[in-house]
């Protein structure tokens, strides 16, 4: 244990004096809130922005008031179809019996204006029909023979926030655990070889397994710090910004699951990146070897983005990284933990970390390590 602590202490000291690592952690903590502030401002602006409707013909009585109150500005034009191409967001021609609309689906402003127009027209038509029926002494409820009453089991706004978190948080967690410790891992492995300290280190009577374990521990700690800094700042930003109409928060259960998974992932990635670094002759080669790892962070999180209701059987929880994403998603969305899934995930990640550790140790004890350097 003493030698393990010696290696750990020295590695931490070096890491904390490494500008690259400190900048990476600082950027990780700043980047996510910055992105969220921008997203929040853009979404707020989009929601309150006024869009222009170029029209011709006579506007039905009352409709102009409804349109204006929905932030649709009416502007008379000679040719609504031509105006919809650039001059205004959508073009509308009011005829006695129908309304023609022109819009360009490739423009987001046109899409939003179209949605608003359809919503307002739907309400206007329903109101007109109800008034006409009432005038003739017929119950307007006839228009809606089977009314639907909604009973949401949780807040729809909160659900939307959780859906956002269930994609974004696993992505940030995995990315930051990997990238936060990458520089330190390569420096502690390929860097030893590059600056020619490896031979002196291996000449000490300290068992190589302890040297390696000390390095893995140090890299894991820095990965964890990086991930927690990024996620902490993200959650802080989310609690202050009205994103998706509400302040998004993480439940204590989901936070606990996240920290547990972060520890497992940090151990796993540290072993893996140290293995790759040990294979490399220098820092730059180590970076080249590690580049494919970035895809690992993207694919599992993408599954949640594209298939939000992906509910696989337990066998899927054996797949490292994907299992962490699924468990974390469940904890965030349902605020509950499926224990069998969590146990399988923990065992899978621990086994992956062990395999990587053995691989790194094997490389670390091979003569070719020295001969190649």
């Amino acid at each position: 244990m003493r030698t393990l602590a010696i290696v750990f202490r020295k590695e931490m000291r070096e890491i904390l004096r490494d500008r690259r690592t400190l900048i990476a952690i600082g950027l990780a903590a700043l980047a996510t809130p910055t992105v969220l502030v921008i997203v929040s401002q853009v979404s707020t602006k989009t929601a309150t922005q006024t869009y222009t409707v170029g029209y011709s013909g006579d506007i039905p009585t009352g409709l102009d008031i409804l349109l204006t109150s929905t932030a649709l500005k009416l502007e008379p034009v000679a040719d609504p179809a031509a105006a919809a191409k650039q001059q205004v967001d959508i073009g509308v021609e009011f005829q006695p019996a129908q309304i023609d609309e022109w819009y360009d689906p490739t423009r987001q402003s046109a899409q939003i204006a179209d949605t608003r127009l359809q919503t307002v027209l739907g309400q206007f038509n329903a109101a007109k029909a109800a008034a006409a029926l009432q005038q003739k002494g017929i119950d307007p409820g006839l228009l809606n023979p089977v009314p639907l009453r909604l009973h949401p089991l949780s807040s729809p706004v909160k659900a939307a926030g959780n859906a956002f978190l269930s994609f974004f948080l696993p992505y940030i967690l995995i990315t930051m655990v990997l990238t936060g410790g990458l520089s330190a891992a390569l420096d502690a492995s390929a860097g030893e070889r590059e600056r020619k300290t490896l031979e002196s280190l291996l000449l000490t009577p300290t068992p190589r397994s302890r040297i390696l374990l000390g390095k893995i521990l140090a890299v894991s700690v820095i990965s964890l710090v990086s991930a927690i800094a990024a996620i902490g700042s993200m959650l802080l930003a989310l609690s202050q910004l009205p994103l998706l109409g509400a302040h998004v928060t993480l439940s204590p259960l989901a936070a606990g699951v996240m920290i547990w998974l972060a520890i497992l992932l940090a151990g796993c990635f540290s072993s893996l990146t140290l293995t790759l670094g040990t294979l490399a002759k220098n820092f730059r080669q180590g970076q080249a070897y590690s580049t494919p790892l970035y895809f690992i962070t993207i694919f599992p999180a993408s599954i949640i983005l594209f298939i939000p209701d992906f509910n696989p059987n337990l066998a899927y929880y054996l797949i490292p990284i994907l299992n962490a994403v699924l468990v974390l998603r469940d904890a965030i969305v349902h605020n509950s933990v499926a224990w069998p899934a969590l146990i399988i995930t923990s065992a899978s990640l621990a086994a992956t970390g062990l395999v990587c550790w053995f691989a790194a140790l094997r490389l670390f004890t091979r003569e070719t390590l020295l001969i190649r350097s």
Partner: protein
Amino acid sequence: MAVKVDRLQKALGKNKVLRGISLEAGSGEIFGLLGPNGAGKTTTLRIICTLLSPDAGSVEVLGFDTRTAPEEVRRRVGVVTADIGVYPRLSARENIAYFGELSGVLDGELEGRVDMVLERLDMVPFATQRAESLSSGQKQKVAIARAIVHDPEVLMFDEPTSNLDVLASREIRNFMVESRDRGKCVIFSTHVLHDAERLCDRVTILHEGTVVATGPTADVRGAHRDLEDAFLELVEKK
């Protein structure tokens, strides 16, 4: 004998680097391991210090076999090479203390040992400076200091002056002499025969993985003008 090498063989890939060499180095002497580049000097030293394992033959350091007791051997050996790699973000003192700790120097003794080594190698003025800002000569001193901080009985120098200027090289040579006078077994590997002739009490000359001559320096030189002439004649004969 402090170091005993017996019929040592080693291949690196398809290249047979050592073809059954034997040699012995004792305490209180500077033993020269000489030969041109590729003769097998560095491989021999790496096997003695347990970084590589022999294919055949055996090596004993102070009675410990390098195969069966590698950690005991490493505790008793200090190695200085031409590669003066140091941890750039640690100070000279921190570099030395780290290797002292890993070599088993106890916490209570560490500070005193490091101070002693710093003074002995005249490193006090730059002891707290980060290694990345040190000159080559100062880095070489750090490399020597970390190799001797645990006070090993056997000191091995593998081409230690090849990257250094005249002044720094002289300091290394002086240090080797001083270590010999303190009773250490000093093994000096070099292809600069002139250096070896001045320093070594005994030498072994390697050529293509075999021993071509061994014995007291004066005996190996024989009637030749210097060790270099003796070496050239030995190689030509072979």
